[in-house]
């Protein structure tokens, strides 16, 4: 049964509403067309770059004194701008009219629909009233939607290849960079070295910063005097290509040192006998440390860390955290990026070697750590987190009555570790508020730690107690030399100081013309300590008074610590590496 409801569509209100709606619709359509046309013409209209105006301007350049032309340009420019702004005004007005027309149209048709609304009534027959068909349709719909979604997801996912899939997580099991193959001359590292040089052998050589005996040379044959200008007493002098504050490292007939600037990092090996450059290797930029120049001070530079050797391999680390290993023939073995060390002055901690490990003290603003890496592969054998900020001191391997310890200094603690596994052995808080650049020194069961303008502290390694502390005069950068119950060190401001190792009392202080960044080195009964000006202060290791033996000139500025092997004294100036002696 079909029911038809009749409506009075001839009534005046109905007709008025309908007419209003249609008029508003036509009006809106017309306005819309005009608006589009106006916008099209507005886009074409460029009052500043109209061809006519451009031609006239060009003409004016050739006739700059033509007032009629100038007036014509003004007029044309005015007209063009007026047309432009009129169009814009029309645009705004038309938009308002369009909105109004559409509003009237919507309201009218809405009212018309309400007027025409018919109450619902049931149909006599609804062909859709078939639950089974409805269910079938629903199942099909759900299935199709599901298939479409699955297909879309698979189309998105299956072709996707992520580079992360090829960078397995196992390679980053330790929190630092895994060693990467050496960039040049890559070859499998030499067979693992089952043994390592004895302490005596290490002490005969100079395997790292301050050698293997805390700055004490085993032999006393180094020269007291030389003349760089005449060449007297100078075995050789070799230019170092890139600058570096690091000190030379000597093993056998090889001298190693590194140099770097903002963009390049190089390792050099010189013949200790002739001074000839045997090989030079440049480090490839690691992904984590390339491109962006580091901020370092001139006093620190990009290669402040002294290299280290275990007698088979040689290791170098640079200010950008790149660490590399080479064999004695210059073959790159491995290279790691430890990340950019956030460090106010530049990274300067030197490497150390212990048995088959290379030790890295990587103190920085965040995530500082001490690590022992396998010398042959660069794999992290152990790593110990350090909750400190940056420091500039170097780790020292010391032989105490209780065994070998690895001593480090950083604000505010001096901490000793077991170099075999990185386990902490003891710590003493004595460097609070310090910027620690002075490496710890050790002698007779006492560790001496210091920071400029803070203190110099003596710590008994057995009892782990502070024996004494002095605030009067403190080392600045160089590591103190402890010998015969006396402590010797240079001052960055100028001067050489001698203190009593048992009490910290001052024995004497000597003036120097230049400040001292280097650490003193003991040769026989003499101490060698170069100042920044290049004067090598050679004086007696005596507490009674400052007894200057000689003060030969290196001939250029010196920031690094000398190395002594046999009768050779190796000194690095800012430009050259010297070997003094026969």
């Amino acid at each position, binding site marked *: 049964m079909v029911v038809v409801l009749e409506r009075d569509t001839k009534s005046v209100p109905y007709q008025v509403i309908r007419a209003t709606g249609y008029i508003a619709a036509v009006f809106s359509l017309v306005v819309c067309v005009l608006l589009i046309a106006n916008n099209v013409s507005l886009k074409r209209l460029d009052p500043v770059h109209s061809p006519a105006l451009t031609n006239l301007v060009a003409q004016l350049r050739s006739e700059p004194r033509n007032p009629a032309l100038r007036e014509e340009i003004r007029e044309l420019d005015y007209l063009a701008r007026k047309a432009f702004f009129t169009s814009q005004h029309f645009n705004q007005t038309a938009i308002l009219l369009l909105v109004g027309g559409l509003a009237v149209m919507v309201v009218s048709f809405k009212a018309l629909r309400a007027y025409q609304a018919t109450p619902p*009534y049931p149909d006599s027959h609804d062909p859709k009233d078939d639950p089974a068909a409805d269910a079938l349709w629903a*199942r099909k719909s759900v299935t199709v939607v599901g298939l479409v979604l*699955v297909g879309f997801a698979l189309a998105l996912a299956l072709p996707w290849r992520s*580079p992360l899939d*090829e960078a397995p997580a196992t390679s980053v099991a330790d929190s630092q960079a895994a060693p990467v193959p050496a960039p040049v001359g890559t070859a499998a590292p030499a067979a693992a070295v089952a043994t390592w040089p004895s302490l005596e052998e290490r002490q005969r050589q100079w395997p790292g910063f301050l050698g293997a005996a805390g700055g004490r040379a085993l032999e006393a044959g180094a020269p007291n005097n030389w003349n760089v200008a005449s060449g007297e007493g100078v075995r050789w002098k070799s230019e170092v290509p890139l600058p570096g504050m690091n000190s030379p490292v000597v093993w056998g007939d090889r001298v190693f040192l590194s140099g770097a600037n903002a963009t390049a990092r190089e390792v050099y090996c010189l013949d200790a006998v002739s001074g000839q450059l045997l090989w030079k290797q440049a480090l490839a930029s690691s*992904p984590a440390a390339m491109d962006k120049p580091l901020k370092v001070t001139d006093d620190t530079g990009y290669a402040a860390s002294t290299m280290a050797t275990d007698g088979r391999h040689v290791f170098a680390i640079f200010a950008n955290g790149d660490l590399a290993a080479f064999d004695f023939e210059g073959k790159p073995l491995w290279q790691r990026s430890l990340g*950019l060390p956030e460090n106010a002055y530049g990274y300067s901690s030197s490497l150390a070697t212990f048995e088959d490990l290379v030790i890295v003290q990587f103190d920085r603003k965040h995530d500082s750590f001490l690590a022992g890496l396998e010398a042959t592969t660069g794999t992290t054998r152990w790593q110990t987190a350090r909750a400190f900020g940056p420091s500039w001191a170097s780790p020292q391997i010391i032989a105490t009555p209780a065994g070998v310890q690895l001593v480090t200094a950083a604000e505010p603690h001096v901490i000793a570790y077991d170099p075999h596994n990185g386990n902490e052995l003891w710590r003493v808080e004595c460097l609070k508020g310090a910027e620690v650049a002075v490496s710890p020194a050790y002698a007779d069961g006492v560790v001496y730690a210091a920071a400029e303008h803070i203190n110099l502290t003596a710590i008994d390694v057995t009892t782990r107690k502070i024996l004494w502390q002095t605030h009067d005069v403190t080392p600045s950068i160089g590591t103190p030399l402890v010998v015969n119950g006396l402590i010797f060190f240079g001052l960055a401001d100028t001067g050489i100081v001698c203190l009593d190792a048992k009490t910290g009392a001052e024995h004497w202080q000597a003036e120097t013309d230049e400040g001292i960044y280097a650490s003193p080195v003991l040769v026989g009964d003499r101490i060698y300590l170069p100042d920044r000006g290049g004067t090598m202060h050679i004086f007696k290791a005596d507490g009674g008074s400052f007894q200057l033996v000689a003060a030969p000139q290196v001939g250029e500025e010196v920031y690094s610590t000398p190395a002594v092997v046999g009768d050779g004294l190796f000194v690095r100036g800012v430009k050259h590496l010297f070997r003094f002696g026969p």
Partner: protein
Amino acid sequence: MSRFARWHLSITPTECVNCRLCEKSCPFDYIKKPNVGLVRENRAVGVHRLGYLFVALPLLIALCGWVGHRLSVPMSRYHNSVRLAENLLVEQANPQLEPTLETTTFRTQGTPETELLAGAHRVRAQMNVGGWLLGGFVGLIFGAKLIGVSLSRTQKDYEVDRAHCFSCGRCCPYCPSDAIHKGNFVPGNPAYEAALALAKVQGTTPEAVAKGGTA
């Protein structure tokens, strides 16, 4: 979750006279009509279908879980660490590529690259688990929906579709039997007007149409 709402509209079976006036009153078509006499499918067919669907449900969950797992790879790229790590690796593999602002910034921060990679792998692993779970859940929903639309039951009365009804109340004025709205069954009321139209055709009164329940 409208299905679990406590205060839903409902059609009281004892008061409903099956007048059908409410059938079209719902703008969303959420009033379910009686289906007595309309179910034409063989019951055995429906039962078998349900059985197949229940068997297929775990498979569907597993399939969708796998799809979610595969989708976790591209989806994880929306995580900053993963995207940055991938960019770094791509640049590493293609040195000729111009470093992006993000990779350049990362390199200047000094964070070890491996730390980033480890973090990215962690995120990827989490996304993988999440992909399985989400995919499985979607599969469960699809399966449940298929089962839901395959369930047929005899419905004798008008019922509100509780899963979808908004309880907007638009159907209330149309019901001539609703005690609350009986006072509305007056000229002007849609239900009254509909009943009036039917009454004209049947030669009776709107009240009689409403009481009679059929047109």
